[in-house]
């Protein structure tokens, strides 16, 4: 009986984090982006500096009509947002905030996170295919090509960290982390960050939803709550990738008073990375489709391979 209660409690807390943290990141994006552009951002919703803007947006999305195009493949079309959203929910369950604050302590959680986040692309592909819209299909093809290209450097960069820590568990990696990794794993960290931004289809890698070229890519035909789910998936993805970066490369909960405030350190480091991802969106223009592939295969994959070799040599030498 206690097992059932514990599982329920863990699931509910993961769900709560899944609903709250993306909104926090979204609000941070609103305000940070606005101030980077000399604007104020939302100021009225909720009274104090527009803190409730995203809640109001959610209420608006719920009220909107849910349209399924006549020519669409109805079942696939309606199922796609869930496929895009759920993988990040699952991935969030295995990311540790501190050694004992983790919803599901899987032994190979690094592998598990990579595997689940890669499923999210299926949702985009389903959405693009089922929409019966050429722009949707183009967008889906673009995101498929993009995610295939960037999955490889992402996996190689994580493999390097796992090799250095001698563990596939995220908790074990964070435990083995030392400040020396900041230099040793720096190329891998850069590759991971760039590949993560590309995986999230965030600017400067937002060709799949490039509004000047293909309307809104795979999400063109979506309205109302289903569209909001795709947006939520994007921000949940930022949360997952930022926390993953914090755990893999920044030592997670390691820091002063890590016994009591470890979870706060992880969240703070993740928030910093999320702000960096927002910062990149504000500062940089979108890449062209061929430049995107060029960057992945000519720059990132060799860099990740070199990092893997460096890590391997060092591990063997120092052992």
């Amino acid at each position, binding site marked *: 009986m206690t097992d059932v209660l514990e599982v329920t409690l863990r699931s509910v807390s993961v769900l709560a984090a899944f609903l709250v943290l993306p909104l926090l990141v979204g609000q941070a994006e609103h305000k940070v982006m606005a101030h980077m552009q000399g604007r104020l951002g939302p100021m009225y919703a909720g009274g104090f500096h527009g803190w409730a803007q995203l809640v109001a947006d959610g209420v608006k999305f719920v009220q909107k009509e849910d349209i399924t195009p006549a020519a669409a493949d109805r079942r696939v079309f309606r199922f796609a947002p869930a496929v895009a959203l759920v993988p990040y929910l699952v991935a969030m369950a295995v990311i540790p905030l501190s050694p004992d604050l983790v919803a599901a302590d899987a032994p190979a959680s690094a592998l598990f996170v990579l595997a689940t986040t890669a499923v999210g692309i299926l949702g985009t592909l389903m959405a693009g295919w089922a929409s019966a819209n050429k722009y949707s299909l183009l967008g889906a093809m673009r995101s498929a090509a993009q995610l295939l290209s960037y999955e490889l450097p992402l996996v190689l960069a994580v493999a390097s960290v796992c090799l250095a820590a001698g563990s596939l568990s995220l908790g074990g990696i964070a435990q083995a982390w030392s400040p020396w990794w900041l230099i040793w794993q720096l190329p891998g960290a850069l590759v991971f960050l760039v590949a993560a931004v590309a995986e999230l289809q965030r600017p400067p890698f937002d060709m799949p939803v490039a509004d000047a070229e293909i309307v809104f890519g795979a999400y063109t035909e979506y309205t109302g709550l289903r569209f909001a789910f795709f947006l939520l998936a994007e921000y949940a993805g930022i949360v997952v990738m930022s926390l993953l970066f914090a755990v893999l490369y920044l030592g997670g909960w390691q820091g002063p008073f890590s016994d009591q405030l470890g979870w706060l350190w992880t969240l703070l480091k993740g928030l910093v990375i999320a702000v960096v991802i927002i910062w990149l969106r504000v500062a940089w223009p979108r890449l062209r489709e*061929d430049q995107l592939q060029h960057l992945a295969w000519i720059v990132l994959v060799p860099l990740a391979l070199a990092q893997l070799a460096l890590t391997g040599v060092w591990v063997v030498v120092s052992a």
Partner: protein
Amino acid sequence: MSEPRTPRSGGALPGLLKGLATTARTLARPTHTTEYPDAPPHLPPRSRGVIALLEENCTSCMLCARECPDWCIYIDSHKETLPATTPGGRERQRNVLDRFAIDFSLCMYCGICIEVCPFDALHWSPEFEYSELDIRDLLHEKDRLGQWMPTVPPPPALDEHSAEPAEVAAANKPARPARAAGAPPPARAARAERPERPERPARAERPARAERPEGTARPEPPADSVPAEPPTPPSTASESGSAETKSPEPTSGEDQ
């Protein structure tokens, strides 16, 4: 496609860092945007917000309504007869404005009505906060248009070395010396002695025009009557003056 290397930019990486630095600097500075209802906008001089009506100046001449490109000015008026002020004097008629309305849902803020108004009854006001929930409420009647009048800013100062405005020049002119009874005015007398008799042929046409039957097209409307007056000798001034006052009446009859 390989990136073309321009000598100025110095490669992709410094450019990317520069972009990050610019946005970070803007983030650190206080924002320069203020939001409208909290901070009133800084309007430039001569802003066109709304058209104000100074009812006392309006003669119901309809010039504004006729010149309006989208016909959004509505004027109703009637004539009132004023009794003669002196015994044996003539009764005067004047226009009384019954309705003056501007439909701001049609107005395109061209300002032609304000330009053409000969008596400065219409003015630009910079007020712009008169939006309505119902488009029909954008029809401002004359009392509403008159309420904008206090918001009209004073005219901007003239440029340096510009010519004196006509009104000021007229007011500053020395008053005419009082005319001695019986004696012809000095200006008129001087003009009468001018050797301008060869211009008579133009004057000779006038009786012919007076005899012309009504309804025929006139080659040049009242324009010729105005320059024709000055050469008139003082002795015939009263006769020609009566002829001048009579002649417009049939022409206005033609117009209608």
